[in-house]
């Protein structure tokens, strides 16, 4: 930075990709139980897993994260509020100064819950809504889910919760509604969060029907650039290839943080590289192992490997590689294409042939808690 510094410090991005002593941000799915059955559920949730962490184990995870100075944890599921000890876990996290952002479908945010949540400073809520209108949303999230989400938002607004988040996964069906969503968020005094659809969990099956078209990818890149106050969870970094000629990059760190700055603790304590790769190949250990979470984060072979500089592979000859870094590992893995090559949603279309060729060969997630489909039996 200046002439007074004798040794050059490696660039920040290099240091981040080399891994940190603890994750910057960690996702913790509290339960696989869910009252909904969204077609793109990243964790294939539905039924509770009998090996789910107990209350005591969950509180111990909170203590471990606090000791590691993890500033906040993203709690999800399943539907986290289904756990009877949900507030015990959240309250303990806040007592230990670990902020909580939690993701919910809103079904259980009645007036009383909204008031309780409004009293907590370190609690941040995001309500999932995947269509501006009930028809678009319920096609993905199930009948009644739009109404439940809107009711939760109304309850939070009425309880003066403050700035909650409305979280949408961008699909080809809700892409045209981005401006409507933005207005809805503004009307609520809420913040809009738009993230990328990934072929994870039940998304392995629904991805090809829901993902953005090439024109929409360009459209969303422009829309995000025009709306810097909209949160994206850094999930569209693969689209930075579209800004290479104009020198534009999306806000955020713009790198794959899997096993480097982020990871996932699943409901049974398994630690994965990121929330979108629930598969044995990306499992680093379990919080029940000796040494707990810190041991897994710092010493697992898998994470050590993921922190090594990656290979550009088939992207080496592409002049946009520096901008997009080859995209999302999870998206490549669950579409069955080469991990050292373009993202299936490569904005320049470089993966289109590979994705088509790999159709039907994608690996299945290691955990599937989907409820069995109930067939109506005629009398």
């Amino acid at each position, binding site marked *: *930075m*200046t*002439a*007074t*510094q004798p040794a050059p*410090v*490696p660039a*920040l991005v290099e*240091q981040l990709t080399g891994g*940190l*002593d*603890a994750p*910057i*941000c960690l996702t913790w799915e509290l339960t696989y139980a869910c009252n909904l059955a969204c077609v793109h559920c990243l964790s294939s949730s539905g039924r509770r897993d009998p090996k789910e962490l107990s209350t005591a184990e969950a509180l111990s995870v909170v203590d471990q994260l606090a000791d590691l*100075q993890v*500033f*906040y944890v993203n709690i999800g599921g399943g539907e986290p509020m289904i756990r009877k000890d949900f507030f015990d876990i959240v309250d303990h996290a806040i007592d230990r*100064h670990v*902020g909580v*952002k939690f993701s919910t479908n809103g079904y259980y945010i009645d007036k009383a819950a909204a008031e309780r949540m409004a009293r907590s*400073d*370190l609690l*941040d809520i995001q309500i999932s809504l995947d269509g501006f209108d009930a028809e678009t949303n319920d096609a993905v999230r199930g009948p009644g889910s739009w109404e439940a989400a809107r009711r939760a938002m109304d309850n939070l607004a009425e309880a003066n919760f403050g700035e909650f988040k409305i979280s949408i996964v961008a699909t080809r069906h809700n892409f045209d509604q981005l401006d409507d969503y933005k207005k809805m968020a503004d009307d609520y005094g809420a913040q809009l969060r738009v993230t990328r659809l990934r072929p994870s969990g039940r998304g392995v099956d629904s991805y090809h029907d829901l993902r953005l078209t090439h024109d929409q990818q360009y459209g969303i890149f422009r829309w995000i650039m025009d709306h810097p106050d909209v949160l994206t969870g850094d999930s569209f970094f693969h689209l930075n290839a579209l800004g290479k000629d104009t020198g534009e990059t999306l806000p955020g760190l713009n790198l794959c943080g899997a096993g480097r700055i982020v990871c996932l603790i699943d409901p049974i304590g398994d630690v994965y590289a990121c929330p979108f790769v629930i598969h044995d190949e990306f499992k680093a250990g379990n919080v029940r192992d000796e040494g707990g979470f810190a041991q897994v984060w710092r010493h697992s072979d898998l994470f050590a490997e993921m922190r090594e500089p990656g290979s550009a592979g088939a992207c080496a000859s592409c002049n946009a590689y520096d901008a997009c870094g080859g995209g999302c590992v999870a998206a490549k893995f669950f579409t069955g294409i080469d991990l050292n090559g373009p993202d299936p949603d490569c904005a320049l279309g470089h993966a289109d042939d590979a994705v088509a060729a790999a159709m039907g060969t994608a690996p299945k997630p290691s955990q599937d808690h989907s409820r069995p489909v109930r067939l109506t039996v005629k009398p």
Partner: protein
Amino acid sequence: MATTAEFDSTTRWERSPKIGLRPEPFGALAYHFDTRRLVFLKSNKLVDLVDGLADHESADAAIEAIIEPTDERSRSAHVKALASLAEAGVIEPVAIL
């Protein structure tokens, strides 16, 4: 709710009590518990400066004492770094009673 302030390096500043600082190989991660913003302090010297600000009567004096800049470029680089930390709410002016 954000406690950001116009940066004046001739006055006294301190690390915000709303900030969590986590040491990292590159410096530190700062997290603002109110605004939920994450900020990177990209050198250990900058971390020392943020931690030591309150012990000096002005940010300029803190830079002289802690950074010991050898030229104007280094001095102004640190003023600029502090200004952006003030904008992010990582540091706050010390209230004059």
